[in-house]
């Protein structure tokens, strides 16, 4: 009887450890299940012209500190804007109503996240409020397109200015 008790104890603790590991993998390493537990939250909405590759579960930060996550990304077909629902930790409940939300990139190849910069209003954001000032995601392709357009335009200008001179002129700052 004694032996079988220690045996069952060993088996039980092994199985418990295994399931704890499985639970950890499914809830802690994935974006799923993070909202099951944790501190109370409230949700605010922000509308962006372009969210780039922002994903559900991306962090929302203020001064670099994570204060919440992106809960939902939807498309408003009336305004042709992306509607992003931010789920913020209720501990950070003093965000002025005129704060602005921008989409930034983590590192060079990192994912997108939303940074909130505090405004100066005396009233604070409440549940289901809307952040009015937003700045869209920085889309690399657009930037490259602009640079290319500028480049070809300035080249054409140069050629028009000095048609006889075939040598490339010095770049002007």
């Amino acid at each position, binding site marked *: 009887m004694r032996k*079988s008790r220690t*045996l*069952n104890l*060993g*088996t039980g*603790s*092994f*199985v418990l*450890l*295994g*399931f704890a*590991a*499985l639970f*950890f*993998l*499914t809830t*802690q*390493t*994935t*974006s*799923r299940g*993070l909202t099951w537990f944790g501190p109370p939250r409230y949700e605010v909405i922000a509308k962006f012209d372009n969210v780039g590759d922002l*994903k559900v*579960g*991306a*962090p929302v930060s203020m001064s670099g500190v*994570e204060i919440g996550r992106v809960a939902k990304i939807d498309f408003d077909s009336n305004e042709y804007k992306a509607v992003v629902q931010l789920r913020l930790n209720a501990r950070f409940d003093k965000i002025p109503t005129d704060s602005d939300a921008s989409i930034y990139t*983590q*590192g*060079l*190849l*990192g*994912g997108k996240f939303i940074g909130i910069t505090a405004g100066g209003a005396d009233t604070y954001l409440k549940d289901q409020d809307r952040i009015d000032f937003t700045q869209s995601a920085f889309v690399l392709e657009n930037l490259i397109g602009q640079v290319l357009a500028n480049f070809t335009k300035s080249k054409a200008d140069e050629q028009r200015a000095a048609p006889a001179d075939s040598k490339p002129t010095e770049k002007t700052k």
Partner: protein
Amino acid sequence: MFRELWESFTDALEGLGSVVHFLFRLVVHSPRALLRFSLISQQIFNSGAFSLVIIMLSGLFVGMVLGLQGFQLLQRFGSEESLGVAATIGLVKELGPVVTALLFAGRAGTALASELGLMRATDQISAMEMMAVDPIQRVVVPRFLGGVISMPLLAAIFSVVGIYGAQLIGVQIMGVDAGSFWSQMRSAVGLRDVTEGIVKSLIFGVACSLIAVYQGYYATPTAEGVGRATTSTVVTSAVVILFLDYLITAAFL
């Protein structure tokens, strides 16, 4: 020469057929064996809990190596923060299930095969048959189910310990930011990746345990035969695991 080739081919087919037949017998006996759970629980203890130390140690070192290698590689692109993603995806989807299965074949599979082979060699299995005790149900099925249940749990433990190993090297020693290590991991790793790992380790559990009990049960009842059964358990398991790993990965893509 063609005749020999043909014969070795038919031998291989016959072997495969008898493994499948054996698997069916095990599956048919499984529901009744589940009623006597204490037997299975003992086998979970034998093959699972005893493998815990080697699994956790290996997981720690595999995770630490991943942390080191991943950091060196990602640093070139200036995206060290993705270390958590790289290590977790690698561990949960590939290294966790595969390395656990290989270690399991070496640690528990050999033990199962030699135990059953020795039972065969010392006529214990025949004695059970004489007493009208079905050796498949009493001896083989509990060992098989014990292995099948242990494997996913061991693989999950391996992955978790590995993630902490990668975190130890990446965050504590190399100085990656802990917040981005975890938050990038959370946003990039999906439930699907974890499911893939669990499915893999379940299938590996079935394959490993089946090969071990088959080799042991049908071992030649001599000292040499038991030794050969043990060896071929490890060799066959390793090849089958890597082959199945490719198949399951392709299926999940």
